[in-house]
């Protein structure tokens, strides 16, 4: 059955570099839902954003039939539940769901925060940060092996919740490797994840959403320069 909601029904407030925004867009793509992408200008917050997410004032925000939903993982679950006739994003078994939610929270609470400081770190501090990220990747490799059961994705044959939660980070992961001059995703240590990363980025629902590594590197440099500069917000 064709998707009947018009583009006006579904809007995503976001910005191309944000992995959290990418999650919402991949989820909508999985469900073949057309949407309007409203790009926020870096450095400023639109009236619509401030109205739609007054609590955190952050992107992404999904606006569905005029009603806002914030927090990327909340948005992904909402999309899965509303467009229930499309391919499932969360696993069907409650235990598998709990495991997927656990690792998605791990990506947000531990993995992504451990990645961010690497690009500007030096010496011993950098080595310690890299070690942390590598340990995290080994844990995620184990989770991948258990969850995928020999298939291409955490979700099995098709991309699912944890693929979306973790895969959305790949652009920044690769950019961090470049900026920090360090190898993080390694065939020797995490062969499953290396293969998975390729499959994920090539998936129909993901194509075009993970920004080029170069673009992210440029963007990161721009942000760093702005923060060091005049201090105007």
């Amino acid at each position, binding site marked *: 059955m064709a998707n009947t909601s018009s583009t006006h029904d579904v809007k995503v407030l976001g910005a191309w570099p944000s992995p959290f925004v990418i999650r919402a867009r991949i989820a909508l793509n999985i469900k073949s839902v057309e949407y309007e992408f409203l790009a926020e200008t870096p450095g400023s917050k639109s009236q619509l954003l401030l109205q739609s997410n007054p609590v955190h004032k952050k992107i992404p925000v999904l606006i569905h039939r005029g009603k806002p*939903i914030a927090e990327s993982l*909340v948005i992904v679950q909402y999309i899965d539940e509303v467009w229930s006739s499309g391919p499932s994003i969360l696993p069907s078994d409650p235990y598998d769901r*709990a495991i997927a*939610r656990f690792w998605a*929270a*791990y990506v947000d609470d531990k993995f992504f925060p451990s990645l961010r400081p690497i690009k500007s770190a030096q010496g011993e501090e950098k080595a310690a940060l890299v070690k942390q990220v590598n340990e995290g990747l080994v844990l995620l490799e184990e989770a991948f092996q258990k969850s995928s059961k020999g298939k291409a994705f955490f979700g099995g044959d098709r991309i699912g919740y944890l693929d979306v939660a973790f895969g959305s980070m790949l652009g920044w992961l690769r950019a961090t490797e470049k900026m920090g001059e360090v190898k993080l995703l390694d065939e020797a240590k995490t062969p499953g994840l290396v293969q998975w990363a390729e499959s994920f980025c090539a998936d129909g629902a993901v194509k075009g959403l993970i920004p080029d590594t170069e673009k992210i590197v440029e963007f990161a440099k721009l942000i760093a320069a702005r923060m060091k500069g005049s201090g105007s917000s």
Partner: protein
Amino acid sequence: MADDQVILLDYWVSVFGMRVRIALAEKEIKYESREEDLLGNKSDLLLKMNPIYKKIPVLIHNGKPVCESLIIVQYIDEIWNDRSPLLPSEPYQRAQARFWADFVDKKVAPRGVLWKKGEEQEAAKNELVETFKILEGELGDKPYFGGETFGFVDISLVTFSCWFHAFEMFGKFSMKAEFPKITEWAKRCMQRESVAKSLQDPKKVDEFVVEYRKKSLGLE
């Protein structure tokens, strides 16, 4: 479900453990509670069941571990889905429930007002007060955060109510004076047996906070 084996690895004063106790009580699930000696030695079982964080609560259902309190509460709601629903059934309301529970975890749970001193403590106190203002507004005149029925957001926040006195002591503000709706809401929740039986005595929480500050953080 009569053959279900349910074990909860818990710690008496943990707000996160209390959330799971409430959820299990709401669903009338029989379970075995095991107290962890968190300040001493963690059990082999805990280290095996939650190797990533080594934290409680951990729900062990028929030998399989579920970690992270809000994830556990959702799991309980989904497995024992034949009674006392904890999350709303409508997707938009479910999203709102998840949003606000996440807000409680991000903004109330850290409790910096108790664990820091000086300027950091002052900043944490201010953030906590701002947080409660937002929650007071969100609750409004509803009996519970979800509306007419007790649910997920209430469970995520009510366990902190036995810590309110400690917040007042160290933050030097009055919950009742500044947040009358939340204060009434907490009393209303305490009328539920699941909540009354799961929460800790505030006096014992105060004692714990004072002792933890001294012994583990070196603060007076």
